[in-house]
């Protein structure tokens, strides 16, 4: 097999996977799960979630080893299940990218509110989201080493601040670190959210010399994220009062201030800013390319494949940014960010279950196709993974979302999203896919 002149190193696989998983909204997810865990065992929920997500990573590793493609889930589900299911799942999946961007925007707005209380947070959200969109439209890319450095900065900062916090914890506090409350399973389900996005490194498979780098990168990244956010959860539950942790939209700033005073506060402000900006940039860049490809195959309206003179899918990019801004504004106004966390955790859990099923299906459908990675423990571990993640998905979707009343809004939201995507694929896509092929169409780049 011929080698590529320019291939990405293992380091990039690790930092990309860890960086995509480490969104600023993770701090609020940790605060939410800490409330369900009981005692001070939030760290344990993250640790167990990390182990379970590692099983899911094994499945993604086999799928990417089988079909290393930027189209990733679009290809895997199409080969392992059906084209329609592939289209529905791809649309729902890209929707979660918008949720995560909106959720990070919410955190970012509150970080600015804590720093400059005189200016509305929504203004900062609009300015920064607009800035990242503009940079993307101009084709300006964040250098790989900057992204690598940013991922390590976040995880390293969490470890250092958390260890400093834990150094001063009184002995009696340590007795409650294994105390698990009655809603611990909900905490575990929400723990999955901390890892959301780790698998979005798989679309880069074509850029590595050897597709086995992706599994190694994902496993190492999951280890780093588990340690960093597990320590953060432990430190936050040890140092901050329970009600303060539950009610604050910026628990990371509270921990930074509690440990290192003003320096710690500003340190965590910088961490939050760089993390949210990375999420904006990575999310918009990845999702806009997906929308471009989907529009090219007429899964989405052709207007979304329109390129500017820098070969950037401008309409797709602007549509995503506007969608994220509107969603962020709604969440900012209502404060129901937990809905986004729960929906994100549920969608990802269901996707991890689907990945397990795809591994089983493709072992049956394409048994002789070359795989550079085979997940061990097939079929029982794979079946168990599937069952566990269906259960965790249901758990996350039925967890209270901050909206009063008995209605499980995350479940309603996920069901509605899937239903709309299904209707769209059945009714609209056949019309879009009518065989039109003429040179000089409107999707050409503006060169």
């Amino acid at each position, binding site marked *: 097999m011929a080698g590529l002149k320019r291939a990405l190193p293992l380091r990039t696989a690790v930092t990309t996977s860890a960086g995509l998983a480490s969104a600023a909204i993770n701090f609020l997810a940790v605060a939410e799960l800490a409330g369900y865990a009981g005692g001070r065992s939030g760290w344990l929920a993250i640790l167990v979630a990390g182990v379970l997500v590692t099983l899911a990573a094994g499945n993604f590793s086999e799928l990417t080893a089988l079909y290393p493609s930027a189209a990733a889930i679009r290809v895997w589900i199409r080969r392992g299940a059906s084209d329609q299911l592939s289209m529905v799942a791809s649309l729902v999946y890209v929707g979660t990218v918008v949720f995560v961007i909106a959720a990070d925007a919410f955190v970012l707005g509150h970080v600015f509110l804590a720093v400059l209380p005189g200016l509305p947070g929504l203004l900062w959200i609009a300015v920064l989201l607009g800035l990242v969109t503009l940079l993307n439209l101009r084709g300006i890319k964040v250098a790989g080493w900057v992204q690598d450095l940013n991922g390590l900065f976040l995880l390293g900062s969490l470890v250092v601040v958390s260890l400093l916090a834990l150094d001063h914890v009184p002995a009696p506090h340590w007795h409650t670190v294994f105390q698990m409350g009655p809603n611990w399973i909900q905490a575990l389900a929400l723990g999955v959210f901390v890892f959301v996005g780790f698998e979005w490194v798989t679309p880069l498979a074509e850029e590595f010399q050897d597709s086995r780098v992706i599994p190694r990168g994902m496993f190492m990244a999951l280890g780093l994220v588990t340690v960093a956010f597990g320590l953060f959860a432990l430190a936050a539950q040890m140092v901050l009062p329970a009600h303060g942790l539950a009610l604050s939209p910026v628990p990371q700033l509270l921990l930074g201030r509690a440990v290192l005073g003003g320096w710690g506060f500003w340190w965590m402000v910088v961490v939050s800013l760089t993390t949210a900006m990375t999420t904006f940039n990575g999310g918009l860049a990845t999702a806009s390319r997906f929308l471009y490809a989907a529009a090219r195959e007429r899964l989405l309206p052709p207007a979304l494949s329109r390129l500017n003179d820098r070969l950037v899918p401008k309409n797709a990019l602007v549509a995503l940014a506007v969608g994220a801004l509107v969603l962020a504004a709604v969440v900012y106004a209502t404060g129901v960010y937990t809905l986004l966390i729960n929906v994100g955790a549920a969608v990802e859990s269901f996707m991890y279950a689907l990945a397990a099923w795809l591994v089983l299906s493709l072992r049956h459908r394409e048994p002789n196709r070359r795989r550079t990675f085979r997940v061990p423990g097939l079929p029982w571990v794979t079946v168990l993974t599937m069952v566990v993640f269906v259960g965790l998905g249901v758990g996350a979707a039925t967890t209270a979302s901050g909206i009063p009343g008995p209605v499980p809004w995350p479940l309603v939201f996920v069901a509605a999203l899937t239903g709309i995507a299904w209707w769209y694929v059945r009714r609209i896509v056949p019309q879009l896919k009518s065989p039109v092929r003429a040179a000089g169409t409107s*999707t050409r*780049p503006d060169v």
Partner: protein
Amino acid sequence: MSALGDTLEQFVAACNHNLRLQEMNHDWDRLILVQPDDAAEEHWIRYHAGVAAVVAADGEPDLIVEGASGVLVSIFSGASTPTEPYMSGDLRVRGSQDDVMRLDIIALLIWGE
């Protein structure tokens, strides 16, 4: 010459007759390996200063395009878009995402949607 070889010669000629493509790719210097997985042959295309040429094997490629001969002939002749076989896993393109996308845009500019 094989059917794929003929097709690539025509593809290169089509690229070089398209002024917008030449302008777009004036600073795109890439070596592309086209490799069918069902035949013992390989073809190389070099893009330099906006001009494409079929060349002899020449070091490590920037992009590797793989698939069945029929699929490769179909997309390089414009009979089908690269998107469909790519999304179904029948076409594999290894290289940076920007370069993969540019290949798709080249096909788009030559043959439309």
